[in-house]
C-alpha cells in the first residue's frame, strides 16, 4: 500500500532572475528618494541647535531631545502669534469634520440617485460634473471669494469647510455613482417593489453596502483637506488658518537664526494625521478600491 507521501517530490523554488533584480534596484532607488529626506527630517527634529550648527545633517542626534517637538506644538511663532502649530491643528479639525460630513453625504446620495434611479438629464448632468471635476481651483478662486463674502462665510471656519466640500462634490459624486452602478439591477428592482422609498432603500440597502467606497473616499478627502494650503489661506482669513498655513508661517517667519529642529518637528506634526489615517485604514483602502459592492 502506498501512503500519501510516497510520490512527494517537491518542486524547486523559482530562482531570482535578472529581471527581478532590475525591478528591485529600481524600487530601492525610489525608496531612497523618499527615505533619505524623511530620515533627515526625523533626526533633525530630535537634535539640539548646537549640534545642527555643526552642519552634519546625516548624523544621529548626540543627545536626543523632545524640546523641539514641544516648542513646535505650543510655542513656535507664526507671524506675531507664538502658539505653535497646535492652534492650526484644531482649526484643521474644525474644517475637516463639517466638510467631510457635507461632501460625503451629498455626493453619496447624488451618486445613488444618478446610478440607480431614473433621473432626467442624468447623462448631461454627469458630463457637467465630469467637466467641473477638472476645472482648476485657481480659475474660480476669486469669484468664490466674492460669493462666500456675499453669503457671509468668508473668513470663517465654515467658509473653508464649505469651499472644500463644494469643490470635492463633482469628483466624489462620480466616484459614488460608478460604485453604485455595479449594484445588480435586480436587487434595486426588488427593493423598489418591496419598499419603493428613495430614502429607505438608501438607508437600509445601499448604505450598508457602501462601507468600502466610503473608506476610500474618506481617505482621499481627509488627505486632500488636511494637506490643502491654498483654500485655507484664501478663505480662512486671519484667525482661522489651518495647520499647513501655520506651518508655512512658522518656517518662513523666524527672525534671526532658523530653528531647524523646531521647523522639522512642526512639519512632522502636520504630516502625522494623514499618515495615521493611512496606517489605520490603509488595508481597507486597497480592499475598497478593488472590491465591488457585492462580495462574491
Amino acid at each position, binding site marked *: 500500500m502506498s501512503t500519501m507521501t510516497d510520490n512527494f517530490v517537491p518542486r524547486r523554488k523559482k530562482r531570482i532572475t535578472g529581471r527581478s533584480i532590475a525591478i528591485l534596484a529600481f524600487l530601492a532607488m525610489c525608496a531612497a528618494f523618499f527615505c533619505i529626506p524623511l530620515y533627515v527630517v526625523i533626526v533633525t527634529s530630535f537634535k539640539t541647535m548646537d549640534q545642527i550648527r555643526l552642519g552634519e545633517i546625516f548624523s544621529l542626534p548626540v543627545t536626543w531631545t523632545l524640546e523641539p517637538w514641544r516648542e513646535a506644538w505650543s510655542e513656535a511663532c507664526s507671524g506675531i502669534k507664538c502658539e505653535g502649530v497646535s492652534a492650526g491643528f484644531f482649526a484643521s479639525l474644525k474644517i475637516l469634520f463639517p466638510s467631510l460630513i457635507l461632501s460625503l453625504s451629498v455626493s453619496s446620495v447624488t451618486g445613488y440617485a444618478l446610478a440607480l434611479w431614473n433621473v432626467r438629464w442624468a447623462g448631461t448632468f454627469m458630463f457637467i460634473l465630469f467637466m467641473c471635476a477638472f476645472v482648476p481651483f485657481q480659475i474660480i478662486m476669486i469669484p468664490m471669494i466674492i460669493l462666500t463674502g456675499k453669503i457671509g462665510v468668508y473668513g470663517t471656519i465654515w467658509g473653508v469647510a464649505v469651499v472644500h466640500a463644494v469643490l470635492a462634490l463633482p469628483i466624489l459624486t462620480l466616484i459614488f455613482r460608478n460604485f453604485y452602478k455595479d449594484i445588480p439591477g435586480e436587487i434595486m*428592482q426588488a427593493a423598489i*417593489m418591496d419598499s*419603493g422609498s428613495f430614502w429607505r432603500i438608501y438607508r*437600509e440597502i445601499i448604505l450598508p453596502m457602501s462601507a468600502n467606497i466610503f473608506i476610500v473616499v474618506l481617505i482621499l478627502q481627509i488627505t486632500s483637506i488636511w494637506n490643502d494650503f491654498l483654500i485655507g489661506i484664501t478663505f480662512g482669513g486671519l484667525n482661522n488658518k489651518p495647520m499647513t498655513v501655520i506651518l508655512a508661517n512658522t518656517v518662513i517667519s523666524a527672525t534671526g537664526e532658523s530653528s531647524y529642529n523646531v521647523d522639522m518637528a512642526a512639519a512632522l506634526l502636520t504630516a502625522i494625521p494623514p499618515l495615521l489615517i493611512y496606517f489605520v485604514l490603509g488595508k481597507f483602502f486597497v480592499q475598497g478600491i478593488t472590491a465591488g459592492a457585492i*462580495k462574491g
Partner: protein
Amino acid sequence: MPTIAFEHIYKDYGSLRVLADLNLSVDDGEFLVLLGPSGCGKTTLLNMLAGLQDVTAGTIRIGEEDITELDPKDRGLAMVFQSYALYPTKSVRGNLKFGLAAQKLDRAEIDRRVQWAAELLQITPLMDRKPAHLSGGQRQRVAIGRALVKNVDVFLFDEPLSNLDAKLRTEMRLEIKTLHEQTKSTIVYVTHDQIEAMTMATRIAVMDGGVIQQFGTPDEVYETPANLFVAGFIGAPAMNILDATITSSGPQASATLSDGTKIDLSHYEFTANPNEGQAVKVGLRPEHFDTSGKGGVVSLTLPVASRERTGSDATIFLKFGDDLIAVRAEPAEARDVMVGDNFAVSFPAGKLNLFDAQTGQRM
C-alpha cells in the same frame, strides 16, 4: 378576485420594438407560464406588469383597475428574480422583513408572517444567516419567502430555477407547484425551459419575437401546436417536420412527401381547406411512431443513421433524404438496431400535424 389583462401592449426600447399589440388575459388562480426563446420579450412583459419598466402604449389591468401607471409597490404583486436579488447585507430574517417595507403593519403581524413563510419553506434554521452563506437552493427559498410574506394574490417569477442544478430544479419545481395549490394565488412564471412549462402551467403562452404564438393548456400546446414555431419549440426531441405537397383535397385528402410516399389525410381535421398542389409541412412527433411498422397513415422504411439512449427512452434517427427523422423507441429495441439497417415505422392517424408551408399556420 382579480384577473390580469394586457391590452394592446407595445414596448419600444429606443427604436427597437420588442412587443407589438400584445393581448393576454390571465384568470384568477391560474399558473401562467410565459415560454419562449431567449430575447423574445418575456422579462420585458413581466417587468411591465410589475411596474419596473414603462409601457410604451397599451393598458394593463388587474381586476377592473388600470395599473399601467401605478407605482410598483402599490400594485399588490410579489416577484421572485432569476438572480434571487437578496439584500446582501441583511440576514434572511431582514430580507423577509424588508419584503413588507411598503406595507404598514405592526410588529407582531410582521413577525407572524415571517415565521409563517419560514416554516412553509423550511428555512427557520437559516434565519440569522447572510445570503452569502447560503446555498443556491436555500437562496431561492429565501427569495420565494420574501415574496410570500407580502400575502398578495399575484406572484411573478422570472426564470427562478435557471441557476440551480438539475436535481434541485426538479425539487423546487414541485415545491412551487405545491405552493401554488396551497395559496391558490395567481402566478405568472417566465421560463425558456419547456419542461418547467409543461409540468407546472395551467396555461402556457408561447412567445417568439415579441408575439404570443399560442396560448393554451400544456396539452393543447403540445398536441395541437398553432404554428410551425410552437411545433418545433415544444417537445424534446423536437417534432419531425417534413415537406409535402397536397395531392388531393376534399374528403379523400392526401399528400405526398418529397420522396413520393403517400400520406392519407382522410381522417385529418382540417382547420383550413387545402388546395391541390399546395406546399405543406407535416409534423410527426417522435413518440407517436409505431415501430412495428404496420398500419397508420404513413409508412416509411428507412436506413438507420444513429441511435441515442436518453435514460428511460431511446431515440433512433432514420435517414430521410438529407434530413433525419427521430423515432422514440424502447431501449431494448434500439439496442438491437444496427446503423445502416432498414427500419420500418408507421404513423397513426389522428396524431399528425399539418402546417401551411407559406404562413406556417396550422391547417
